[in-house]
């Protein structure tokens, strides 16, 4: 296995070609030794008899055709795992960088993971309380779900992610262990630092595993970072019984790394130059969320991605949306008006919430309230469009009420302070109070009993009179 071969026949971007090698296999890891004695790692991405195409993770600068030696390891890329993982910091390829020395590994696992058998899954039902009204009420996060944040450069997705981490707790806390796996994929040093600081402040650092591939780290290593993070998460969840929340930022940087790699391999590009297998590749990450039968733990994912040019139809958010179970979309115009968190309610969605809310989970009226809020707020958008043409004065009285509702909804419901942790009851009651600004006849998504029980126009007025204390 450990025969060392010297000499390469081709170097092209992150790829090198080795000829005359026998015993290599597809997807196997190799070690490259440079003349100065330093090592790099690579992976066989294509193999044709004795000709191997190798992807070098740390980049190929300084590599020469004649003086580089290659050793096959005989194994795919593996990550060392141990119950000591929480509290540690690794680089994008899973090497410790916190100065605490190597991890004493209990076992090793292939970072590509294996597909979960749908029969072996448990359908996620328990909601995670985030204390953020817009998320809890309108796009409830469920344990075992993958719910990405679609953001844009300059918006406060990181702050929102930190707030979720700090406030997240299970609705019915059964005392089981909660942990965080954080993967920084090609983000700036400041961002990684912000997360580290925030985790420390929130006192969760000793339950957090960090994988950092910063924007100045080798690009090809980015392809490994989320896989390492998810391998660690799966180990902690399915073998140590922890409830793991995985935060990956920024998936767009991951996709760009994949595109770079694909084009250097000479593959036929699909949309916007991304490889045709981007969907399958992203799915191999996102589908590693869930709960499996007979095991206590769970993996919940909150990937963060920045939409280039705020375009939700860009391949990265588009394909992500097709795989994940919903999305939280941030909106630049809300952000510009100073509303935090700037959650754009209408395009946001949680696919799993329908079974995890209502009687026995949150409250019987939850789904009615959220549907009605969606419907009413959608009408607000139409009304605003109309008002911008004919002027707000010429609107019908009902439409004027809608404008008022829209304003209040954004200021009182969507907006909340960074430290503010709203209880579910509080959020739902607030929703009813806002809906009560509208005439009863407009509330066509709720049935009459619920309307009688919760409709409260007086409280709605009182709500309007309160100053905007949340800002």
């Amino acid at each position, binding site marked *: 296995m450990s025969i060392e071969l010297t000499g390469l026949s081709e170097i092209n971007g992150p790829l090198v070609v080795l000829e005359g090698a026998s015993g290599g296999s597809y997807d196997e890891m190799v070690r490259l030794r440079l003349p100065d004695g330093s090592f790099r790692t690579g992976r066989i991405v294509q193999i*044709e008899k004795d000709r191997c195409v190798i992807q070098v993770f740390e980049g190929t600068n300084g590599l020469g055709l004649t003086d580089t030696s290659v050793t096959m390891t005989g194994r795919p890329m593996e990550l060392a795992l141990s119950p000591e993982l929480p509290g540690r910091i690794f680089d994008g390829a899973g090497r410790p960088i916190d100065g605490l020395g190597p991890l004493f590994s209990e076992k090793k696992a292939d970072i590509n993971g294996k*597909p*979960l*058998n749908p029969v072996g899954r448990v359908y996620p039902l328990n909601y995670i309380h985030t204390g953020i009204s817009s998320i809890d009420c309108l796009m409830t996060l469920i344990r075992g779900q993958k719910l990405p944040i679609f953001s844009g450069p300059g918006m406060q997705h990181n702050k929102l992610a930190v707030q979720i981490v700090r406030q997240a707790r299970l609705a019915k806390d059964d005392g089981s262990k909660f942990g965080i796996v954080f993967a920084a994929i090609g983000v700036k040093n400041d961002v990684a630092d912000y997360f580290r600081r925030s985790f420390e402040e929130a006192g969760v650092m000793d339950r957090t595993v960090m994988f950092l591939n910063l924007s100045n780290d080798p690009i090809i290593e980015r392809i490994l970072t989320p896989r390492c993070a998810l391998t660690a998460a799966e180990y902690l969840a399915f073998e140590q019984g922890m409830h793991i929340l995985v935060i990956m930022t920024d998936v767009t940087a991951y996709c760009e790394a994949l595109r770079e790699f694909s084009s250097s391999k000479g593959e*036929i590009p699909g949309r916007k130059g991304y490889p*045709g297998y981007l969907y399958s590749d992203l799915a191999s990450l996102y589908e590693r969320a869930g709960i499996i039968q007979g095991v206590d733990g769970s993996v919940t994912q909150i990937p963060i991605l920045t939409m280039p040019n705020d375009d939700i139809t860009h391949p990265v958010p588009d394909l992500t949306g097709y795989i994940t179970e919903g999305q939280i979309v941030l909106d630049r115009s809300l952000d510009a008006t100073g509303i935090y968190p700037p959650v754009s309610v209408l395009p946001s*969605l949680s696919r799993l919430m329908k079974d995890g809310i209502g009687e026995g989970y949150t409250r019987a009226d939850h789904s009615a309230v959220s549907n009605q809020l969606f419907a009413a707020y*959608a009408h607000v958008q139409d009304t605003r*469009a*109309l008002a911008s043409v004919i002027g707000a004065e010429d609107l019908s009285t009902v439409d004027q009420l809608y404008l008022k509702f829209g304003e209040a909804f954004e200021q009182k419901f969507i907006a909340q302070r960074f430290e503010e942790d709203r209880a579910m009851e509080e959020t739902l009651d607030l929703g009813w109070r806002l809906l009560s600004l509208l005439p009863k006849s407009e509330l066509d998504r709720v049935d009459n009993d619920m309307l009688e029980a919760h409709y409260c126009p007086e409280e709605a007025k009182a709500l309007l009179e309160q100053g905007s204390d949340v800002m």
Partner: protein
Amino acid sequence: MIGNVVFSVNGPVVTVQNASDFKMLEMVYVGERRLIGEVIGITREKTTIQVYESTTGLAPGAPVLGTGAPLSATLGPGILSNIYDGIERPLPELMQMSGAMIDVGANLPSLDEEKQWQVTLCVREGETLEEGQIYAVCPETPLIEHRCMVPPGLRGKVVSAAGNGLYRVKDTVVLLEDEAGKRHELTLCQKWPIRTPRPIGKRLPITMPLITGQRVIDTLFPIAKGGTAAIPGGFGTGKTMTQHQLAKWCDADIIVYVGCGERGNEMTQVLEEFSELVDPKSGQPLTARTVLIANTSNMPVAAREASIYTGITLAEYYRDMGYHVAIMADSTSRWAEALREISGRLEEMPAEEGFPAYLPSRISQFYERAGMIRTLGGKDASISIIGAVSPQGADFSEPVTQNTKRFVRCFWALDKSLAYTRHYPAINWNDSYSEYADDLADWYAGHAGRSFLARRQELMGLLHEENKLMEIVKLIGSDVLPDDQKLIIETAKLVRTGFLQQNAYHPADTFVPLPKQLRMMEVILHLYHGARDAITGRGVQKHAVALSEILETGIFSRLTKMKYEIPNDRLELFDEYDAEVDQVLQAL
């Protein structure tokens, strides 16, 4: 002789050099772990194989074994209530074997070979059997009788037939001698290559609808038994939800649900939900008539491409027994992308957006396997295909949507803005169409009442009219419109929220039979006609009434909620609504 060995590996594509004994589309085993693959290209120098499992660790020099047969599905009792991966490996058994994570190289029989079935023989010694003729039956589930048929292409005389009793799928129950004197053992199962359509007697014209219990489909855009429909929509518009609703409630005998490159949790949901849900007609769990094919998005891409064919082959098998089968494919875009991915690895010349040039022909071949037919055995049966399409960027002009549109006759366009307002099913009534409406006119007239089509037409007219008026309203507001036009807008709004919008989670609303759909239309139109007479002064009030007065009575929002208040079995309650409408209008 040295066997064939792997020459190169690139993702799921493997090549073998200098092999001459492979056949096109032959199934092969690759490597020591016996990964399942299929021959997809042969030249003098090189045989190309696509592998249905992860090729990690595969090395040049590993053996490749031919099986001599194309990739086939095993057909026999035990398919229903089961869940398979894309190449018909049973997932529950896979889980017993390798745990919750799927290992590679697991070769499992598709059917439980030990289970004994209570078989009743239908033939006697000396009888002549034709292809497609039924020789034995057994109860497969409490709902479905499994009928074992003579495989296509085979006919002959029964040499011996076993007695009724318990048999396993591989036990021989009939011995058949063909004209050439060759003897064939007929068991309870047979094999069929998944890429070849099973032969039929003849095609029949479309005559009856597939009743789904969804108002916007049954009333506005019906699909026929033996028909094809596409549901395109961006993410979050409710494709999967609509497919689930159809799988639960449509009146086909057998449902084949193919989860092609979709979410794992969704398949788990289908599994759990279908085993709890009870079929309203028979009182049996829905799984008793359902087979699931799950190739989730993280399972190997080549098997995703095959999953669609596996699904349709199973559907054809049950069709040949004389059942009406509906197959839901969610989503055909993932299948098309799998084609693109493999085509890219083969370095084929791409056509539109990187998709291979043969995409349209593959799509049409798939949809052409639907139809209302007479089987070889002489029974009338059908396959209806309902394919979800996930257009990139929700843009309907992309190749998969466009090509699908050419080969389906029913198009249910899902609309993002409807989904934003949580109007489900988010089927846009302006962009959708059904070419079956005319074919089915006779059926509707005969079964749903003569007035049904007229009412439907009036409803469509109102929605169309509203669409035109909304153009004006968007510019100048609704206040300036005359009352009769405002009434159209109000009525259309009632149609949208009170009729088209349907709540899948409400027990009385999730499935609505045709008579109730008709009565709902009638009540809505009764109000419309009454109000129209009232505002023009031709009504019972003897003077013209302002529309605002009618609106103030709240009668429009009352009718919005009738869908929740009347159970499916108490249609007489609609009379009260009619009376209420009369009362309100008279009091003005």
